[in-house]
């Protein structure tokens, strides 16, 4: 009877068939199909491994066994089955020690691996054990056990140093007997490369604030062989690190490099936009946001492109919290909103209007599709409408603005409270009566929206020079605003933007502003239809409610002039001279700021008048 093929040979063949099938199948374009195949490979490899590990470990078969363990673990890792992979690795290390006859008496992986490595030093198995250790490294990395990774830094560097020599070894071996070498599904050198850069990225992200040491590690990582996207990440992280070190220009350079390296690295673009905003380079920021928005609309950027064609996707190992927060980019709609806001604030009104209209259209279409998830990062819809309305008003499209305001009023008017009673913020903080105040707050917010809508409409009419209508809408606004009362009488309405309580503070500030602006608007309208007395009263009240209002003061002077109280007018004007109308800021909603939309007083004319007055 002839001798049958030995187990070693048949198992090696089986492994090689599986591995080459695995290698060939990696280029499958269909991702889902790939996943399915991966699952099959891993179960096949695991089956083979169970056969091999079903018999006592032996030195002759150790090479094969370690290779199959490697292949199986790679497959497990590719499917994020880290626990299974780790269990397998530990078992293998123990079997390895059985061969050597060592018994560390512990199942602590790091001790096991150290002993195992020591036991095979100088043998052909050393390389295989190192590559398994490499997989262990991957598991640690995926589970964010960075300290364990750090512990093995020394062994890892050994691995790197060997990678060149190891490969030459491999080739020599291959020449000897081609069929008997168990094939690996993934070149361990590639795995080392991948893990190295992933470790550098994760560690960099965790220790961004540490300065130069992290930076140099990242720079070193960026020169190592790695997938394009990961190289881009190293540049991105270098940029963030530099930004932490207060070197925005260098950071920008790094972000640019990241984007040049991988155009899909939109987070670099977003981070640059943030830096530009910090540097107050509004034009650049707007440009960056615009590009970011158009890139986010491309379908390719939102998809994970890294996994394509490779067995192990880098994203398996990049699961650090701080990294993902760094890599996250707001949705296209939020980007569009901030772009719109920036445009309006930095006097690129027409662009801003377009952006707002795009945004509203997108929101509407999403509303129809029932997708609401994205909206949460955006401001509330009425506020968006009001901001868009303000932009339209600034772009001298009062009709459109009025339509938007009507929308806001229509949706909020029915929900308005009869009266909003506000407690003293200090007292409220002590008492902490949550529910009531929340309701009151909601009421206040809705009330402010409606009031702002009326205010904008008043502005629209005054822009159309329909003064009567303007007066009507300003009056509506004022009537709404006076519904807000304070519980504590000792606490007057004189608080400007209080920084102590941000939300309430902003709301109160908006309230005051709206009051001032609506009174001023009504006063100006009265002045236009020559009801100077009412005009004077309103403007006076406006100045009280909102002392910073410039147009109110100028018009106050004008009305005084017309009432022939020229000296007072002149004094008033002199005062306003020094401070021009402030530019828009981001701290407050646009609609609660002076928009320069109403009738303006020509300053030259004022000068002339003053000069006329001078000699007299």
């Amino acid at each position: 009877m002839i001798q049958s093929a030995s187990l070693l040979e048949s198992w090696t063949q089986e492994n090689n068939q599986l591995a080459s099938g695995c290698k060939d199948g990696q280029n499958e374009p269909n991702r889902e199909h790939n996943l399915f195949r991966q699952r099959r490979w891993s179960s096949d490899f695991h089956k083979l491994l169970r056969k091999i590990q079903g018999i006592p470990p032996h030195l002759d078969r150790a090479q094969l066994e370690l290779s199959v363990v490697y292949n199986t673990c790679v497959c497990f890792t590719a499917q994020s089955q880290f626990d299974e992979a780790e269990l397998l690795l530990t078992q293998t290390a123990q079997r390895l020690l059985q061969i050597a006859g060592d018994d560390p008496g512990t199942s602590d992986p790091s001790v096991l691996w150290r002993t195992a490595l020591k036991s095979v030093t100088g043998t052909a198995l050393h390389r295989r054990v190192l590559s398994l250790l490499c997989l262990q490294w991957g598991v640690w990395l995926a589970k964010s056990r960075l300290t364990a990774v750090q512990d093995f830094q020394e062994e890892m560097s050994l691995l790197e140093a060997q990678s060149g020599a190891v490969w030459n070894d491999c080739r020599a071996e291959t020449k000897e007997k081609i069929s008997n070498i168990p094939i690996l599904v993934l070149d361990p050198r590639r795995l080392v490369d991948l893990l190295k850069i992933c470790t550098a990225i994760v560690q960099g992200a965790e220790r961004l604030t540490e300065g130069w040491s992290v930076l140099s590690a990242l720079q070193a990582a960026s020169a190592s062989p790695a997938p394009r996207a990961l190289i881009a990440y190293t540049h991105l992280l270098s940029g963030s690190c530099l930004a932490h070190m207060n070197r925005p220009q260098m950071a920008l350079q790094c972000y640019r490099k990241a984007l040049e390296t991988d155009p899909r690295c939109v987070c670099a673009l977003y981070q640059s936009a943030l830096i530009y905003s910090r540097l107050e380079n509004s034009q650049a920021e707007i440009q960056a946001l615009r590009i970011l928005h158009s890139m986010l609309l491309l379908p390719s950027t939102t998809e994970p492109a890294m996994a394509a064609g490779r067995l192990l996707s880098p994203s398996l190992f990049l699961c650090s919290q701080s990294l993902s927060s760094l890599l996250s980019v707001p949705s296209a709609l939020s980007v569009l909103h901030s772009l719109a806001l920036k445009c309006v604030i930095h006097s690129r009104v027409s662009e801003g209007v377009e952006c707002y209209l795009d945004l509203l259209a997108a929101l509407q279409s999403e509303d129809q599709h029932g997708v609401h998830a994205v909206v949460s990062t955006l401001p509330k819809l009425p506020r968006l409408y009001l901001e868009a309305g303000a932009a339209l008003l600034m772009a001298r499209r009062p009709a459109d603005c009025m339509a938007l305001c009507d929308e806001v009023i229509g949706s909020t008017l029915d929900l308005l409270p009869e009266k909003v009673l506000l407690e003293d913020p200090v007292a409220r903080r002590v008492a902490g009566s949550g529910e009531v105040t929340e309701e009151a707050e909601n009421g206040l917010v809705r009330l402010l929206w409606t009031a702002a809508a009326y205010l904008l409409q008043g502005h629209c009419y005054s822009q159309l020079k329909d003064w009567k209508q303007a007066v009507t809408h300003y009056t509506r606004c004022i009537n709404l605003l006076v519904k807000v009362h304070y519980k504590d009488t000792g606490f007057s309405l004189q608080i400007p933007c209080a920084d102590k309580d941000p939300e309430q503070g902003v709301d109160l500030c908006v309230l005051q502003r709206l009051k001032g602006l609506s009174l001023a608007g009504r006063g100006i309208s009265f002045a236009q239809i020559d009801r100077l007395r009412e005009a004077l009263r309103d403007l006076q009240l406006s100045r009280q409610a909102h002392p910073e209002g410039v147009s109110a003061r100028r018009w106050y002077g004008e009305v005084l002039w017309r009432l022939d109280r020229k000296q007072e007018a002149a004094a008033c004007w002199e005062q306003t001279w020094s401070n021009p109308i402030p530019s828009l800021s981001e701290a407050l909603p646009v609609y609660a700021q002076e928009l320069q939309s109403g009738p303006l007083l020509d300053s030259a004319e004022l000068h002339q008048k003053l000069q006329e007055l001078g000699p007299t």
Partner: protein
Amino acid sequence: MEKLSSDDSNRNVHGLSHGGKILLFTCKRDPAVSVRERSGLTFRSFYFEREGNAFLNATEGATVISRKPSAHVDIVTCKCAVDVQKRVKTAFVLVTKMSEKGSSFKYSLLALRSSHRLEPCIEFKLPYQMKGKVSILQGPTVMWSHDNSVSYTSPEAEGVRKIPIQMSKCLFGELPIQKGQLFALGLSEPLLANHSPTLGYLCEGGQAFDGSLVLPHPYICITQCMRVLTADRVDDVLRCTVVAATSNQQLVLFENGTVKDTCEVPFGQAEDIQMADTGRNGCLFVVSFNQGHVCAVWKETFQMASCWSDVDSAHVDDFLGCGTEQILLIFRNNGISSGPLEKFIITDLCGISYSCGQGSEAPKASLPPQENSLLTLQALESRLQSGLIVLQELEREVRVKDRVLQQSIQVLTDVLSGRETVLSQPEQEGLVALWDSDEESNDETPDDKLHETPALSSRPKIDKLWHRITEEQLVVGLILTADSAIPASGVSLSLLTEPGQNSTPAVIQTRSQVFWLPARGPSTPTLSSPSPGFAFSEPAAKRSRQHIASDDFSAGRLAVTAVTKLAPLLTSGCVKCRAMLHYAEKAEAVFPGSGPTTAVLHCGEVSLDIRNLCQKPLLQNPQIKTDEVREDLLSLLTVLDNWVLRIDSPDYSLGDIDGWIKRREGFKKIDVSPEYLLLDSPGSSAPMLLRWHQINPFQGDLSIHSSQLQMLQFLDSMLSYLPDSCFIQPVKRARSQSTAQKLACALEKEVLSLREGLSSLLCVKDEEERKERRAGHGETPDSGSAEDLVRCCREAWQQNVEKSRLRLNPVVDAGRYREMVQSISQVKMDSDLAALCQLNQS
């Protein structure tokens, strides 16, 4: 069929299933009659009644084993086996009688001949007690292992036989071949050199065989029990399927000695494997373990079907009489002294299930065949996923369409309302603009300008003329001083022979190349003339700064080399060559507005003597920074073949290629020009020069100066380092260069074909003449009168005169001439085409 595992020593009840019934044997020591009276064996058979869901007693019987009062009788095992003589399956029970002294053991095998009669079948004596595994196999044969050997006995065997081979760790069983073959397996001891370590022995034929056909040898040690499912002899080779339970908690299926499948089982220490045929649903392996655990494993999928614990014994038979087999599990009844068949399950794990005494502890639901449902699930999942993908793609498309629609509507409304559509610059270009990306493009221009607009100068000044001899080649090189800035494109060097030997100096065929020695120091010779596709890298600032002190502050020097074969030159022993520099003068320097004119400059002589040629290897010591070394380098660059390869890896950065090359054995940096790496291992014949120029992390140019074979070897080893997805392509040379080269080639071909055509034409004629002459000579009479001789001589002389006249004005065959002209005109046409291309280029 299998002994009841009796931990309880008081109870000595063994059961087996036979013909759908359960047989229970009890060794009876009647306490009422006193132990001394007699020792007997009672047996009872039970059948299962479906209605009552219980086993009912069918028959009972008893037999006396020993009449000696002192004998200690025990049941060893009981099993069903084929009685070969009667050709019927019979239940056998093996009992042992220990002698008084305990020194010898008497065994007898009893057969249950009818439903109520036990007959002795074999009787034998052993000097020891059977402690290991004992089996009753077909024959009937009793087989047991003792002390690393296997013994057996049967009615035919006439006494106890021992297998005559020394084996360690024995296993035995039977092959289900037509005529039952009992075999034993073991590890041979001592190990034989040419032999499989697994040894098999067939009891009946008495022959040894390769045991690894049944079980591979690593499994011998760990197999706890095994069962041969099928066996067959094909061409005298044993083919068999075996299932074995190992100590590693696995059930392993072997086919012809290779592992087919494994199944993890939750227990170790298996004792028996039975097989149950459940009919349509396939077969089950029933594995019983030591501590009363039982596992059922599907044969088809080799997946565990179910497992039970606290089992007293497991039997397989058709207890229901329905045509398929079921598993009967008899559970231990803890302490309750009721009948032996109170707690049991009969099941086939696919529909049939009867249980009794299990109470709430209902049989564990049989696991469905896992593989099947897994496959179904996977198929469904993949369908679902592909459906999802299609859906997502559709959604994406709809989104894009919506956007396009929106934008178009916007543009339309804009047009209608007379507003101008505002398209931002990047939108118009369909590009993604970076905010400040317009700095870099200017980077390289100053560098280029540096090379392309040299200062005007009348004639180049020669710095140094040198020559090297390497491998039958002569390299003559020339370094021009920096201020003699002439355009590199038109520069070449040619060699002329010394006019003293011939009346006119002849041009030696040479190949000329131009190199840039960059400004500030001699560090980087950059190949320019043969491959201007090279990106001129700026000189590495750091390195050159170190050399400033020692070197001239010139801006970009030019080195011109010419290489020619040495041997033809040295035919006359000693030779002097003139080196002539050809260069294109700046047109404006002579006549403004006219094209560049070429000028020739004699720059020195090179003298060679065959007697003292110094042929020493070039660049022996690359660490030295002298002019000689630089000249050596230039010579090597000239002599060696050159390839420039673009390595491009779009998805995966290349990493530190330079470092990799340096780490390879034998590569040394050349200090005069650190960009170049020299491989000058003593083994390889020719040196190899490498230069790696990284364009960006994903691209780089590798120029290799070496022999073709070396280049291929190097590339092969490099491929293992490079990422899999990278492309390697030879760098396309600039088009002007390629057309120029084409023209040169075409011209060369033209000249060659002209020469060859003409010479062949004339040679043929000469040949003919020679033949004629030879023939003529043959005619001349050797002897004759002086007059005849004179006449002949005159004729010959006249012929010669005629011929020499003809040779001066040769007449050639018209046909051949036509042929030649045709071929030459073809070649000429090609070269004209090349020239046209070249003209178009320039």
